[in-house]
């Protein structure tokens, strides 16, 4: 789960990170008031769960309260990579002497938590990683003991910080690491972390993402969820134990198993179609679960045909077939359905489907070819 910049800053502030004082505004007038309160130059920043805000014009400097109001007026309602801006964050302007990058992520190959930093802050860190990897300093936290003070100092010295700035930086690195662990984050990032002209550290832009599997032990994080930023269909699916991701195509997919669901999407594509979604119905495939899957898929008006791909394992093919049959009694589906059923009790399942007026094919490839043809209005 992602949160907004202002929420990430709020969390990191609790860990002692020197975040920039800011105020959230949902209207130009609120932005003006916030700017007036801070005085001097402020930045007005779009609060959306996506990057590239700067390039999209979602971050503006304002030297007066009126400018802040106008900036907020321009930004609020803006669409940034498909995200509508509903809130802006108004923060005090800071005199930047130097920009750094500081982030904490999982290092999958090492199965450890990684602290990474760069003296090239304020830019796309992935670009730095790709093009000037030597500019990034990395240290792995010990899996049991965590990140040690000396590691934070090593990073600070490797960035070339002067002696007087080392402890301040090291403290912030430790705070980000602590926040990552204690909040069950999957990403904690400050970019840029700046040194001001006065020599103070300020976390100018904060970002955090969280492990969905750990949200039940962080209700205060869950409460930060911004439904306006969420795909409600995906959330709805999740609550039914279904993994669902909306895509741009027109062929709906209902599959048991995540890997098989991806492979099914790939097969659709291979046969000239475009998948409308990723959907894993999960372990069982009861009538209500399948009905839910149908309603998720058909909620998308672009869907022109549905491919159901089931490999009967522990969940038997006949049970799945019954689920499909019964679900079709519950949900109205008006587009062609192609079913592929294989594995345990597939033959019996096919008979059940046949009784329900559906023909099941044997292979994924045949099913993919058929569903693409059906979507395009012709027989395979």
């Amino acid at each position, binding site marked *: 789960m992602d949160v907004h910049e202002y929420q990430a800053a709020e969390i990191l502030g609790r860990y002692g990170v020197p975040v920039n004082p800011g105020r959230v505004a949902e209207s130009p007038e609120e932005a003006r008031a916030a700017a007036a309160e801070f005085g001097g130059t402020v930045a007005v920043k779009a609060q959306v769960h996506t990057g590239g805000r700067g390039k999209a014009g979602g971050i503006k400097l304002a030297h007066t309260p009126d400018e802040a109001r106008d900036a907020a007026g321009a930004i609020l309602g803006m669409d940034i990579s498909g995200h509508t801006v509903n809130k802006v964050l108004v923060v005090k302007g800071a005199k930047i002497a130097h920009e750094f990058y500081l982030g904490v992520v999982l290092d999958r*190959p090492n199965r450890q938590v990684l602290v990474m930093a760069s003296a090239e802050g304020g830019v796309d860190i992935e670009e730095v990683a790709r093009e000037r990897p030597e500019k990034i300093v990395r240290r792995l936290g010990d899996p049991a003991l965590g990140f040690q003070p000396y590691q934070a100092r090593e990073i600070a010295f490797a960035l070339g910080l002067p002696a007087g700035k080392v402890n301040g930086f090291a403290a912030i690195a430790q705070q980000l690491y602590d926040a990552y662990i204690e909040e069950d984050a999957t990403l904690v990032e400050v970019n840029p972390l700046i040194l001001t002209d006065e020599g103070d550290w300020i976390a100018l832009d904060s970002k955090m993402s969280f492990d969905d599997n750990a949200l039940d032990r962080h209700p205060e994080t869950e409460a930060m969820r911004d439904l306006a930023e969420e795909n409600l269909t995906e959330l709805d699916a999740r609550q039914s134990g279904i993994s669902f991701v909306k895509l741009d195509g027109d062929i709906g997919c209902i599959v048991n198993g*995540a890997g098989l669901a991806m492979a099914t*999407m790939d097969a659709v594509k291979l046969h000239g179609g475009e998948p409308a979604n990723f959907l894993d119905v999960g372990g069982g495939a009861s009538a209500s679960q399948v009905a839910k899957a149908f309603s998720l898929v058909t909620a998308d008006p672009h869907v022109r045909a549905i491919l159901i791909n089931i490999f009967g394992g522990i969940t038997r093919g006949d049970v799945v077939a019954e689920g499909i049959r019964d679900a079709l009694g519950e949900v109205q589906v008006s587009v062609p359905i192609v079913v592929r059923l294989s594995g345990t009790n597939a033959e019996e399942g096919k008979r059940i489907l046949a009784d329900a007026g559906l023909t099941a094919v044997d292979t994924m490839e045949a099913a993919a070819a058929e569903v693409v043809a059906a979507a395009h209005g012709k027989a395979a």
Partner: protein
Amino acid sequence: MSILVGNDTRLLVQGITGREGSFHTTQMVEYGTNVVAGVTPGKKGERVAGVPVFDTVEDAVAETGANTSIIYVPARFAPDAIYEAVDSGIGLVICITEGVPVNDMVPVYAYVKAHGARLIGPNCPGLITPGEAKVGIMPGFIHEPGKVGLVSRSGTLTYEVVDALTKAGLGQSSAVGIGGDPVIGTSFVDVLRLFQDDPDTEAIVMIGEIGGSDEEDAAAFIKEHVTKPVASFIAGQTAPPGKRMGHAGAIISGGSGTAADKVKALEAAGVRVAQSPSDVPRLLKEAIAAA
């Protein structure tokens, strides 16, 4: 036996009296797996599918000589179950449980490794040595004893490929589902090494998916160390970046972890990569013929 499990396996089921645990215990016993014990705290003296239940792993190991454990407990209890298994001397722990927070798994991974044990999973279907031992939730009947070692991050997609292999006359030495989470106990490389060293395995199938770089690491390992023919399939060619595809670990982030990169790395290592799961048997036969 082929790799990891077989006739020597003496299996313990942690969480044996739960819905999943009891169902799969029955399935495993029916398959012929030597399930010697189960553990559910407070349920000592009960039996599931004829298997005696103990309060603690320590007791179960002492009484039955269990050497392998499979875990079906809920996510929030899974790390504790793994520690209990390792501390009780279990050398191979298979964690089926899905949804374990990553921050819990980081210390677990290091702990298991430091104690010389092996963890498979979490969020995995388990593993099977056809005809000897099924230690997991896969449908046993689609497997056939043979010479192909299979390793996969997925569940049903693996069954799909196994089914195709069996139908093509390619039986399996062992099939290992390593799991779909970002932090898993056993990687592709670990299993490839075992298959390479296993005299019962003559060819290898590897089923990958988007996210992380385990497939790339596997490609590097194959290039360097694997002399047996390898065929592969990578799921998620059409997956969009930044979205989790069901598995917690199946996500393209920051432009890395794409299927295209993985396919490229594998092909550069001489692996034949199929465009669809059903094409795997044909490519594997080609690879075997070319070897």
